[in-house]
């Protein structure tokens, strides 16, 4: 049976809470209300106020509380209402969560999960739409995942909760309604493994979040002109799956990275750098990035649609790259 990504997150939380009594859910309005985007709906009814509870509107302390309780053996799953608010707790993440293991030379760990919806497309304005994953990827000591299918939403959430390290688990708002089959039982998607969503020989498109679907649309479009694009869904932003990326690029000789974050300093830069270091000889074209412009997310639909990277840009960019064919 196909379920939505939102539902996959919800069901997986419930399953893991049943399995492991140390797992609990905290955040603003996550209990009886079920979360602003209804991802935790129903958990309170099943697990009660000791396992699912509302916190004050205090991003710093709720993040610290997740860290501290994780250090004492609990398995907190914290919801930050929108990823745009994670920067409020950035010190806790960067200077506490990420550094604890090292600060104890491995004698301590922080097995927490910070879940947050993110991304544009809902016309919610510059403070509720950002793609901040690249900042988190520059923080050693944490992991960052970004499921794009209900199956991976489950698999990565299980992996994240069971990981002894702090994991930021990012849910793109426009993917909550995405439907797909979800395997029963202990289905774990390993952190650090990308997925090839479509095989192709002419060009590799590495994408994440909302851009995976757009890349697949673009690939379909390109197919009409005889171009076979391979689409790699990162799934994990940190640590990056270098092997899958490099293998694909070595096969196709062309790399286009697509993400919704603004271009400068986005995760596309790191991917380009990895390829330029390890597989430059394999390349037959410049490495290109399709990303949002270096700009806040505008509110109005006409502007937001212009701002968000679209399949047509991927198609056009891919064609330019293949037009060069200088191999």
């Amino acid at each position: 049976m196909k379920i939505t990504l939102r539902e996959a997150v919800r069901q997986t939380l419930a399953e893991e809470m049943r399995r492991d009594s140390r797992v609990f859910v905290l955040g603003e309005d996550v209990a009886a209300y079920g979360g602003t985007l209804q991802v935790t709906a129903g958990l309170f009814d099943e697990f009660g106020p000791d396992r699912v509870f509302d916190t004050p509107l205090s991003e710093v302390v709720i993040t610290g509380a997740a860290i501290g309780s994780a250090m004492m053996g609990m398995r907190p799953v914290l919801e930050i209402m929108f990823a745009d608010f994670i920067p409020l707790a950035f010190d806790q993440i960067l200077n506490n969560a990420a550094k604890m293991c090292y600060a104890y030379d491995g004698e301590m760990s922080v097995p927490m999960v910070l879940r947050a919806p993110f991304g544009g497309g809902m016309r919610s304005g510059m403070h509720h739409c950002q793609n901040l994953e690249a900042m988190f990827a520059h923080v050693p000591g944490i992991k960052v995942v970004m499921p794009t299918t209900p199956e991976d939403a489950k698999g990565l959430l299980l992996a994240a909760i069971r990981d002894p390290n702090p994991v930021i688990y990012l849910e793109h708002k426009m993917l909550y309604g995405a439907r797909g089959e979800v395997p029963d039982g202990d289905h774990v998607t390993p952190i650090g493994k990308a997925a090839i969503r479509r095989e192709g020989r002419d060009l590799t498109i590495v994408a994440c979040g909302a851009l995976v679907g757009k890349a697949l649309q673009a690939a379909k479009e390109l197919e009409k002109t005889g171009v076979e694009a391979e689409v790699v869904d990162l799934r994990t932003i940190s640590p990056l799956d270098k092997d899958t990326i490099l293998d694909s690029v070595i096969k196709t000789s062309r790399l286009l990275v697509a993400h919704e974050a603004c271009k400068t300093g986005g995760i596309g830069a790191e991917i380009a750098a990895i390829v330029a270091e390890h597989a430059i000889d394999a390349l037959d074209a410049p490495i290109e990035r399709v990303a949002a412009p270096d700009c806040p997310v505008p509110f109005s639909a006409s502007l937001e649609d212009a701002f968000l990277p679209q399949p047509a840009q991927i198609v056009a960019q891919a064609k330019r790259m293949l037009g060069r064919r200088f191999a």
Partner: protein
Amino acid sequence: MEHLDTRDLLKLYEWMLLSRITEERMTDYHKHTPLPELPHAGIGQEAIAAGTVLDLRIDDQILPSLRTRGAFIFKGISSRTMMAGAFAKVTGAARGKNTSHHMGDPKVGVVAGSGVVAAHLPIAVGVALAAKLQKKDYVAVAYFGDGGSNRGDVHESMNMAAVMKLGVVFVCENNGYSISTPLDVHCAVRDIAVRAQGYGMPGVVVDGNDVLAVLAAAREAYARARAGEGPTLIECKTYRWLGHSERDPRDLRPAEEIAAWREKCPIKRLRDHLLSNGLADEATLDDIRAGVAAEVDDAIVFAEQSPLPPPEEAALHVYAEPRTDR
């Protein structure tokens, strides 16, 4: 209260109605044609914005919260601009780049807010700091909710404003809920105002549905602020009639509680005061309502007819160009 003539009272009445009707029309509109800007109506809370803005000068700066819709309009943002903003049109806030919820306008003393709850309080401190350094006496009025009061920014802002004696007036719109979370779940005290003692500034509790009580407290706070005596925290007890937003999946508040607070309508209260004291007759008040309704109708037509912003403007004005004038 001194210096409060009937004209002021009628203005307050008109303002509150303008806020009310604006939000009623927005939420109604949203039910049939979803607005790009999700309404977060402050219906029931209008007395707070009205009572705090009345005494402000054009150079005073307000920093409203999501819920303080009225404050924008009272301070001088036109109904047309506000409504066009909610419709995300080019004639709205920042040519469609920003929501009307958080828009700013330096011409009328409205400072753009943040979608991050209470993150504008530190900015308010900076505004008041500028006034002090410029040896001017404009004030900064920052609105925030009971939920927002638990953010660290609020603490740091109150402490710094108090110790530096900056002219910030902190207006807490305590409507008893942070989305679905009741006050007693997010905070162990009943009065946010008691926190003022911890910063060495006055903290007062007023009936936030009594516009005259709000006005009186604001007047005192502004006098202190302008005299260089520092900040004040005014806590206004109130209630929002509608859900947190028009996308609220559920309203967990008791129906009787909502009903009881609807009885305490701040607009009706002022209307009764005006009528029973013979300060205005029904006809005058009805005329005011008709005028306000016409203004809102006009704003909606304006918003509907305005174009969307041209897509090619999306990435403009991320950085300011060097200017010689400032």
